[in-house]
């Protein structure tokens, strides 16, 4: 669905995106992870055909981004991080207007509103919506023309746990419908849960690209931490794969003296820090 080869872009004389190469397969959820100013938004703009002055190649849906026509956007849906709604119009009026800007209108507005729990607020002005409601409305706005490719920028930002879950389920549902999804996020938990593959971007370069599971497993070992009572509570740790070599742990198990035991894997955030030397926030 997306092929990027030797992509370089700069706003000034200094390159901002440097020789980037990656591809995204059809039906895949691909995550861009990186701190602010890493180049994620610029990359998204290039792929959306908004910055045609790049070098190299960026092909989306078989079309070079700098040469696209208006039909390019028929197959693309975008959910920006910020609300992009007419505040003085109702949710329904907004969706009807934006869907009228496409040749095909494939999804029922009522069904989409119902899917995100906004069916009772359809005729309310968007200015009266909470941040979470606006996020949900923004998301379904990207779906009104049933695009093949979705660009989602921090889709769960500002959502309470219940709506966060709802949003993630909807994203997975869209994947099941065959959509290719490009997700930009700071939220490592979301990326781990949603993405088939992620790319770590810092300073306009891709530092690593793989599935979250492979990244976690390739760079760090799971650790087992256990506690027992001996002159107060004692704690010790060992690597999961070396548990059988830990004599103390075996002895505690044999004597039923363990107070607690749990394993912990490194998070994607830990891996990101290890690879890039940067934090995500």
């Amino acid at each position, binding site marked *: 669905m997306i092929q990027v080869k030797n992509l370089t872009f700069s706003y000034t004389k200094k390159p901002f995106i440097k020789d980037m190469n990656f591809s995204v397969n059809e039906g895949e959820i691909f995550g861009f992870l990186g701190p602010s100013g890493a180049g994620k938004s610029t990359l998204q703009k290039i792929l*959306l055909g908004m*910055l045609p002055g790049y070098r190299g190649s960026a092909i989306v849906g078989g079309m070079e981004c700098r040469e696209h026509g208006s039909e390019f956007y028929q197959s693309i849906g975008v959910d*920006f991080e910020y*609300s992009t709604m*007419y*505040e003085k119009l109702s949710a329904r009026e907004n969706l009807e207007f934006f869907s009228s800007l*496409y*040749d095909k209108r494939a999804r029922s507005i009522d069904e989409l509103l119902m899917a995100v729990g906004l069916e009772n607020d359809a005729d309310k002005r968007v200015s009266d919506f909470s941040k979470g409601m606006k996020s949900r409305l923004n998301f379904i706005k990207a779906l009104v023309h049933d695009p093949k490719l979705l660009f989602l920028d921090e889709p769960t930002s500002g959502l309470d746990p219940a709506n966060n879950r709802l949003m993630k389920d909807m994203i997975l549902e869209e994947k099941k419908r065959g959509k290719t999804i490009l997700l930009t996020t700071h939220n490592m938990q979301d990326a781990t849960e949603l993405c088939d593959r992620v790319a770590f971007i810092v300073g306009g370069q891709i530092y690593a690209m793989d599935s979250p599971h492979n990244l976690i497993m390739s760079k760090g070992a799971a650790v087992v931490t256990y506690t027992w009572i001996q002159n107060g509570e004692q704690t010790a740790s060992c690597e999961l794969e070396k548990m059988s070599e830990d004599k103390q742990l075996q002895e505690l198990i044999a004597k039923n003296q363990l107070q607690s035991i749990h394993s912990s894997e490194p998070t994607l955030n830990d891996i990101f820090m290890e690879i890039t030397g940067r934090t995500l926030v």
Partner: protein
Amino acid sequence: MRTIRISFIHMLGFVRRDMMLLAAGVSPIFIGLVIRLGIPFSEKMLTEMTGLPYVLVPYFSLFDILYAAIIPVIFCFITAMVMLEERDDHIDRYLFVTQLGRFGYYVSRVVLPAAFSFVVTAILLPACKLSDLSVLELLFLSLAGTLQGIIIALLVVGFSANKLEGMAVTKVSSLVMLGSLAPYFIPGPYRYLLSFMPSFWTGMVITEKQPIFMLVSVLVAALWIVVLWKKVGRKNN
């Protein structure tokens, strides 16, 4: 074309909901009435008071020039306000990535309103004019006013970060219209100091009765539009 039409109609609906913009939209009719009825009445009062044979009559064509500019400037101010509100709410960027696209957006927000204002000016100006203008001059004034409207819209959008700044920039940008005063009030070669303003050449067309100045006026306006268009494009990136 379908999406551009939808976007333009949507903008009209947006203006209808905003009382300030709606009032601005109908104001050219009232301004025209004030000029058509108020200026001759003022002339009558002034001549009676001063005993002079005429006071405002030499400037009747200037009133026509300014009226022909005010109509498009008002319409383009309205569209600039809509564009700034859409920028404040990040809607313009979203519209760029729909089938409307960036080009379609600017056609629906600048080109179509300008064409609309040309038509309205071409209708209202003959009805409210004070001086004896030929059909060619009426059409030229409508076109020149429209080009000034586009310039002001691009100045407002290009140099304002939000709607509040847009109000302030509109006031300053309106000075673009005042070049037409120079041929009436500034003597000799000094008037050419304002020759970089399209409105200066509009004034020259009417005072000097030289049709070639029509071409100069359009070319100077086109140069302004090209430069400002690039500025707006850079701002959106």
